[in-house]
């Protein structure tokens, strides 16, 4: 029991340190450094806000707030899945030379995007403060829970994609296109109610759309997801994570020989 505790503690330190080094390396040599992690979504926000509030006359309730929340969440998913997928390959120099569990590498790479997301949450808070808009505590709770669920989905994806990517490098190209499609298929810059009623139901099957849609409506309109829906969604997420871990265990065999 003590040995197990020590093992977990040991790997926790390794995971955390690798994540910190990833963040450090990412902005090495750039003048603005960490500011980029906030600046790039803000630039995307400015473009989308300008286009959609001027040309398309989006007149949703607090469009700017909805947009910034959605962009940050989508960015988190995008960054996390990409980093997770590439993680084992990127750290090949560790895995082929010493026996450390591969999950430590997958988790540390995705933690990097968690750190960036947390910085982005500060920006979101800034936006709400600037607009003098105070969301209800239920909405904030939903925002926190759904952010955690988003991370669960990132892990679910990464545990399967990382070992697969070692064998099929095409995955990064395919996923980049998928992310593009998801960006349009998810209510990021539009509201779900703009889609035809039948379409809305189908879209909500996408976990990403579910999370982003209900976070937006909760925060801005106090329109919460039904409890039953949320609980079901919660359970499904963790079942998927379990399946992903089983697949990971299977895919993990003889992995080193393929790198």
């Amino acid at each position, binding site marked *: 029991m003590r040995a197990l505790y020590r093992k977990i*503690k*040991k790997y926790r*330190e*390794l995971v955390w*340190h*690798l994540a910190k*080094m990833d963040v*450090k*390396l990412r902005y*090495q*040599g750039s003048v603005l450094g960490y500011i980029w992690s906030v600046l790039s979504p803000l630039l995307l926000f400015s473009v989308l806000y300008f286009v959609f509030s001027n040309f398309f006359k989006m007149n949703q309730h607090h469009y700017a707030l909805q947009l910034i929340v959605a962009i940050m969440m989508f960015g988190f998913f995008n960054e996390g899945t990409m980093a997770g997928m590439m993680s084992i390959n990127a750290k090949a*120099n*560790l*895995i*082929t*030379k*010493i*026996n*450390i569990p591969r999950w430590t590498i997958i988790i540390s790479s995705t933690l990097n995007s968690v750190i960036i997301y947390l910085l982005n949450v500060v920006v979101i808070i800034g936006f709400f403060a600037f607009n003098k808009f105070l969301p209800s505590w239920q909405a904030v709770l939903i925002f926190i829970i759904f952010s955690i669920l988003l991370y669960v989905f990132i892990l679910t994806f990464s545990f399967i994609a990382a070992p697969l990517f070692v*064998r*099929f*490098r*095409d995955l990064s190209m*395919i996923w980049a296109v998928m992310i593009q499609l998801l960006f349009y298929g998810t209510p990021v810059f539009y509201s779900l109610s703009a889609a035809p009623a039948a379409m809305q139901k189908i879209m909500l099957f996408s976990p990403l759309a579910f999370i982003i849609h209900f976070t937006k409506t909760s925060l801005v309109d106090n329109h919460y997801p039904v409890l039953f829906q949320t609980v079901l969604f919660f359970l499904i997420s963790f079942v998927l994570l379990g399946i992903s871990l089983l697949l990971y265990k299977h895919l993990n*065999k*003889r992995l*080193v*020989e393929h790198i």
Partner: protein
Amino acid sequence: MSFALEVNNVSKRFEIPHLKINTLRGAFVNLFQKQSYEKFDALKDISFSVKKGEFFSIIGKNGSGKSTLLKIIAGIYTPDKGEVKVHCPLSPMLELGIGFNPELSGRDNVFVNGLVLGLSKKEISDKFKDIVAFAGLERFIDQRLKNYSSGMAARLAFSVMIHSDKDFLLIDEVLAVGDTEFQAKCTEYFIKAISEGKTIVFVSHGLDPVQQYSNRVMLLHKGEILEIGEPQKVIQTYLEKCN
């Protein structure tokens, strides 16, 4: 008699595709044509054990399976058949500076490397001064690794490695790199480790250290054990049969 390491009937086969397939299209095309593999038996039914405190050397020509065997003992590869039992804490010394990143400072690299080698953060902090002093890099430790000479980087890596050593060392010709001064430091450490009664499994091309320090030597040839025994005798066989 207690063992530090038991290797029972370990076999490892590599199947190397004739054309490495790394793309989905490649995999699709290959669904319809029979994939041809180069089958290579790196290890065939290897069994041996190493006692605690023993200095055990493995010799053999290139491609005899030495490195594969070390990687299996270190847990990097999984054997196809058989099992490996390691009974005391193992320090794999297969390569210097695992996880070193040229863009990070010497300090950060010491922590990455040390954590990977199984030290805790606190242990590294406690030993940090010693590690840096041993490498003789006090003035440079907060510079990026890419500004180090290769000798400096090797010294730092070596220093972390020996400060993280456990009771059982797995050494793969680390001593082959570096200038004479570095080699002298390695030999010094080596002798100290032996006198402390550490268990050592040593793989080498150089026959001199093998003959000098080993209690027993194992000769591998084409993935099989040709002989295990007295250093003198096994080296004799090696020189006769494998050249």
